[in-house]
Each structure stands twice: as C-alpha cells, then as structure tokens.
C-alpha cells in the first residue's frame, strides 16, 4: 500500500459512509411502507437522481474493495506484485460491471 492507494481507499470510504446510511434508510422506508418491487421500480425508473446515487456507490465500492483485495492478496499470496495488481483491477472491473448492470436494471428498464 502506498500513499496514493491509501488516499483513494479513505476517500471512497468517506463517500460510501453517507451513501450506506441513505441506502439503509431507503430499505427501512420501503419495508415499513410495504412497497412491492413494482412500487419501487416505478419510482426508480428514469430517475437521474437514483442513477447518480447508486452509480456513485458502485464507483466507490469498486475502487475501495479492489484496493482492499489487493492488500489481502499482497499479504497472503506469494505472487509478484504485477499479477496481484492485475487481479485487483480485474476484481474492481467485475464489481463495477455487475453494479452498473444492477443500477441500469432499476433505472433504465
């Protein structure tokens, strides 16, 4: 871990903290009001705000988690650093692709 990765990981954690709180609040709201999947989708479809909210969340998670995975691999697996970097980047891209696909599913469809 160097200072650049450290700052990216801390910055993305700082971004995620309020987003997670809002996300949990949304879950509570939806379950308390007995909202169905159709009710939720009717509110999220076409919403630029929800797309931006969860898009930012996916972006932050992908960077944060891939740096964490890089650290774990670096400490636990005796493989050279380039391969570990490649694994971490791949992991981040997979997270981003899956996350953005999920966001598209609730916003665009």
């Amino acid at each position, binding site marked *: 871990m*160097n*200072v650049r990765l*450290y*700052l990216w990981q801390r910055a993305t954690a700082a971004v995620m903290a309020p987003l997670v709180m809002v996300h949990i609040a949304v879950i509570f709201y939806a379950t308390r009001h007995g909202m169905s999947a159709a009710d939720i989708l009717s509110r999220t479809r076409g919403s630029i705000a929800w797309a931006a909210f969860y898009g930012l969340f996916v972006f932050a998670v992908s960077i944060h988690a891939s740096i964490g995975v890089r650290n774990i691999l670096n*400490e636990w697996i005796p493989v050279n*650093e380039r391969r570990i970097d490649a694994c971490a980047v791949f992991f981040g891209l997979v997270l981003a692709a899956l996350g953005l696909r999920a966001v598209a599913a609730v916003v665009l469809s």
Partner: protein
Amino acid sequence: MTTELSVSLWRGARNGRYETYRVPLRSSQTVLDVVTFVQRHIDPTLSYRFACRVGVCGSCAMTVNGKPRWTCRTHVAKVAGGGKLEIGPLENLPVIKDLTTDMQPFFEKWQQAKGVFAPTQTRNDPIAQIKPDTPARKAADAAIECINCGVCYAACDTVRWTGDYLGPAALTRAWTLVNDERDGGNGVRLQAIAGAGGCHTCHSHQSCQELCPQALNPTAAIAALKRRTAAAYLKGEIAV
C-alpha cells in the same frame, strides 16, 4: 512449592526444535538468568545475545511464552505460569542459531526509512536552541527513548505478512526525525515512507504499542506519518 522450572529453549537454526531443561527456581530471577544458567551449567553450546542486563542495550530480546520481551527485565515469576517457560528467538528475523537472530534486516529498514539524522549545520555553527515545549519537539521526544531492541518488529503481524514493510521501529524513528527541527532530510524521508512497504501498510493492530518495553507508542507515530505523508502527497511535495 515448585523448586524447579521446566524451560523449553529453541535449539538450532530455522529448522531447529525446542529442547527442555530443568532449571532451579530462584527469587527475583529473570528470564535472562534462566538462559544464562542453562548455558553455564547444562549446555555451554547454547547461543544467545545480551550485554547490559539492565534494560539499556536492547540486545537480549527473545520470544518468551509466545511474546517478544527483554529477557533481562522480565521476571520469571510474572511470565512462568505453572512453572513453565518457552523461550525462542525473536520472530520475523532470520535465526542464526538457538536464541540468536540476525538483526540486519531490522537495521536495513531503518536505513530505508531514512532513520539517519540529516544535519543542516556543521560543528562550527552555534548549538541550536531547541524549545522543549513546542508540539513538534514533544512529538520528537515521545519516541526518542527507542533503543532498537526489535521487540515491536517481532510483535508486528504486518511485518510477518509483508516482507518489505519497514516496521514500527524504523517508522517511529522516521517520525522522530520528521519532528526534529534541526533535521533537513524530510523530503527524502517522506518520499521513502510513502511508497510500498511504508507507513500506509500498517494495520494498526497495536501489538508494537502493547509490547514495547519502553512504553512507546509506534502505532501513534505511524498514524501521524500517514497523515503527514498524505498531506505532502496532496500538496505535490512527494510522488509515488
């Protein structure tokens, strides 16, 4: 009442084993006394390192019942539960023989962390007047009593997991010098500790703080270095 200790000592190099000895239990006995008894009365081929015997030199650190300690300042009565002691070489360092480790990697990391004072004046200049109550001087003083015993380095999980991690002692030394107003090497020093294996590798497990025989707090020093290097990086003063 027990009159003997059962003492297991590491014998051999990396692929050695523990061997058990019976040592008379005495009052005010230190772990170093026990090791010395074995060498002088049972097996003179036992290798170990010590010098001052009073907690000044930092050369007698060993692993005592699973934890790194100064053996000269560790009383048997405090650590030998059930009359048993297991004494091994320090962790995270190559074993030369028995209880003696090769400290070279430890001191090389001090060099890598730029733990050497970089003077800004010569001996011909007047002696610098240092105010003892400034925040920087207090931060420098906080860890100035480190005697390089290697206990924190042996206690550190991150050192165990990450071979190039500089470790708590070297980074604490760096933090001391970062705060020394007479030192002129901070540009190079911050650059050295901001890269891979530097201060940001620390997980803040705090084993170093818990086991430091001098009651120093390397974890706090490393946390402060993280903040200082992050600020320097954001200002463009260092690059990685």
